[in-house]
């Protein structure tokens, strides 16, 4: 296709706004994974290392002016058009975007995604949909997973979502029909800190954890370890307490914070050292979590 067209938001769930694809990933679930990154997130975490996946393009057109190669145009008010052939990936459009969106992405029909997954299926254990926050595009997500589940050649692929846990109960009820599990970020334990680190309340996340554990679909809980924020003992003990009350045996993964790619708000933090991770792991294990990686 020579010209990519940005569709207005699709209501039937036939279109996914995809920020990126990793046809092979070793870090998004067990085994080799095909990973789809969906655009848009309702959390606003300063520590996000991929902030250009947070916003969704509203067609404001600010990016048009900075694109020296005219790879972006605005033929109709409110619709940015991307011409991939002209783009040299300089990234200027991403830097000026007031909504942290990515004007170069193109909405993809679910069928096209399924075809690409089919090419890579022999090489992977499963498909992980990440983001952004994938459950914001719930209809498309469910449609995608349903297609995978119902295709005899693809049904064996494990279907996971990588989520911030903000989806409500009704949403989960629909999604749980078609997924094998969810990997959930629990970014802090104290409500104030959670709000500061994500811009959102912690309660819906804890409710999601409980529901997923109840249904045996909680694949992993992750903690982003930020020195001076989520690495002190009180915070870690509280975090362990929440997770233990959900399921003490759930796999827990500690992720070291990295400054690279984050926005200025996160620059006050340092890269988390391996020693801090080791210490945090020891605290969580001592607090009764049985499966900390």
């Amino acid at each position: 296709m020579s010209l990519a067209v940005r569709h207005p938001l699709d209501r039937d769930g036939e279109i996914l706004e995809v920020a990126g694809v990793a046809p092979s990933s070793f870090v998004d679930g067990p085994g080799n994974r095909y990973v789809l990154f969906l655009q848009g997130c309702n959390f606003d975490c300063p520590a996000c290392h991929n902030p250009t996946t947070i916003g969704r393009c509203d067609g404001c057109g600010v990016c048009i002016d900075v694109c020296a190669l005219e790879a972006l145009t605005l033929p109709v008010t409110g619709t940015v058009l991307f011409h991939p052939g002209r783009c040299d990936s300089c990234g200027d459009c991403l830097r000026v975007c007031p909504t942290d969106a990515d004007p170069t992405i193109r909405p993809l029909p679910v069928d096209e995604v399924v075809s690409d997954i089919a090419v890579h299926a022999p090489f992977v254990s499963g498909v992980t949909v990440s983001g952004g926050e994938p459950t914001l595009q719930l209809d498309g997500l469910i449609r995608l997973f349903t297609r995978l589940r119902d295709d005899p050649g693809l049904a064996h692929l494990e279907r996971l979502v990588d989520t911030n846990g903000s989806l409500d109960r009704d949403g989960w009820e629909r999604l749980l029909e078609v997924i094998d599990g969810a990997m959930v970020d629990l970014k802090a334990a104290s409500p104030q800190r959670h709000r500061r680190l994500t811009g959102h309340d912690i309660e819906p996340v804890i409710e999601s954890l409980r529901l997923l554990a109840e249904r045996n679909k909680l694949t992993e809980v992750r903690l982003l370890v930020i020195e001076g924020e989520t690495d002190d003992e009180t915070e870690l003990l509280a975090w362990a307490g929440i997770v233990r009350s959900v399921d003490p045996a759930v796999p827990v993964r500690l992720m070291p914070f990295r400054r690279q790619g984050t926005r200025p708000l996160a620059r006050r933090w340092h890269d988390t050292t391996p020693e801090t991770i080791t210490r945090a792991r020891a605290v969580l294990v001592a607090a009764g979590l049985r499966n900390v990686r």
Partner: protein
Amino acid sequence: MPSFDDVAHAVRDIVTSPRLTYRQRLHQLALAAEDLLPYPEISADARRAIDEGVVCDLAEGHAPYRPRYVLPDYATALRQGSDHLELDPPQSLEEAVDFLKILYHHVPSITGLPVYFGDLDTILEPYLDETWTDDRLDRLFTRFWRFLDRTIPDAFAHANIGPDDTPITRSILRVDRALAQVVPNLTLKWDPVVSGDGLLREAAVAIAEVNKPHIANDPLIRRDFPEGYGVVSCYNTLPLGGGSHTLVRLNLHASLAHHTGSIERYLTRTLPDHVELTFEVMEARIRFLVEEAAFYEHSFLVDEGLIHPERFTAMFGIFGVAELVEGLLPGCTYGRHDEAADLARQVIDTIADIVQSRPVPYCRNDRALLHAQSGIADDVGVTAGARVRIGAEPELVDHILTVAPHHPRFPAGISDIFALERSVRANPQAIADVTKGAFARGMREITFNVEGSDLVRVTGYMVRLSDVEKLRREASRINSTGLGADSIENWRLLDRVPRVIGMETDPRMRSLLRSG
């Protein structure tokens, strides 16, 4: 002929070299002596092809007096004992291991040391009884592995395991991973039905740590070798109880330098001419080995039925496919553009068709076997075999899909090294997944280099980076360290782009949306 003074000078350099051990000096002296003889008789055109680097005999020497690769039938030897070595058949597992250690000492090859230690689990399995616990096996194989690494210090020496999943198979994987030695090189013959996922998973765990074993697609390769096969040296698949007289290579990059005109003309004239010159050199070398040196008439390995002259083939190696197709198609990158992949396929088919139809004297089925040559340290600026250029690798699966279609045409072996990011260490199942996918798409064999290991794969053999560093100051006890050091430097070997990078580190990776 070099002058006496030249020879004396070269000999003096060898016997005084601080970077060579005693045995390495001895081996070099033998090579220097051999090269005093005239080259086997070849035409002026063939001579020129060698001098210009179009045909490369890998400096095998002027007077072949032993086959390049020998794969003795060790199972037969263990069963019948050896008159020549005055050894009765071993009665226990420990005796069997001792028997093999003795026999290895008498197996020749181009390196002066054996390149094949046998399918160790298969040949030793009959000696296993209930007294052999895993712990006892591990201790036995730890001793055996140390013996091999210290007395046969050459990374081309290769052990095979699988496809059966036996206690010995598992013990070897455990011990090999714990010791992380250069020797032996190790190949797992894997069959999805016979071996199962558990064994592949165990191999993946070892690969994630020490970049070994190499994995062979057993059902596919077995079809080409009804007599059985072994994987030896750098990914060479050869008949069991036989081997390869010689390996002569065609440098496709150099071949292009001697071509003018269209692609069509290259495929119909230049290439077939160069293929024939390669055959001429190969044939001259084989005739010397068989008729003049008469190796097969004076070897107890033949007399005792451990090797059979009719199971020896010759290897026709090619390399520089990447540079050839990129030279013929300016602006195209092999591994990224379909036109380049299609042309590579045409080139390989042209060569493979000739190799399959041209008789070669004294060879198994009267034919040589095509091999995608993994390369030597001197191949500066030319990519090994049919590999994608270092630095031009596409995404992992695209990379596999680019090279997999070539695999059926290389019965004597074709390799590629897939560099993996170190995050795979926490998730070795990913290695098993990729291997299964690659085999399902027809790859004959696969090998990985995981970032951050001291033990790395060079062409097919292994080298420890710490040994390379040490070699700057002193002789290495391992013969192949020098080759590895030169290759790493000459090929920017450690620059192979690691896969897989997650979106976590690069949001702008390949994406459906930007394929345009």
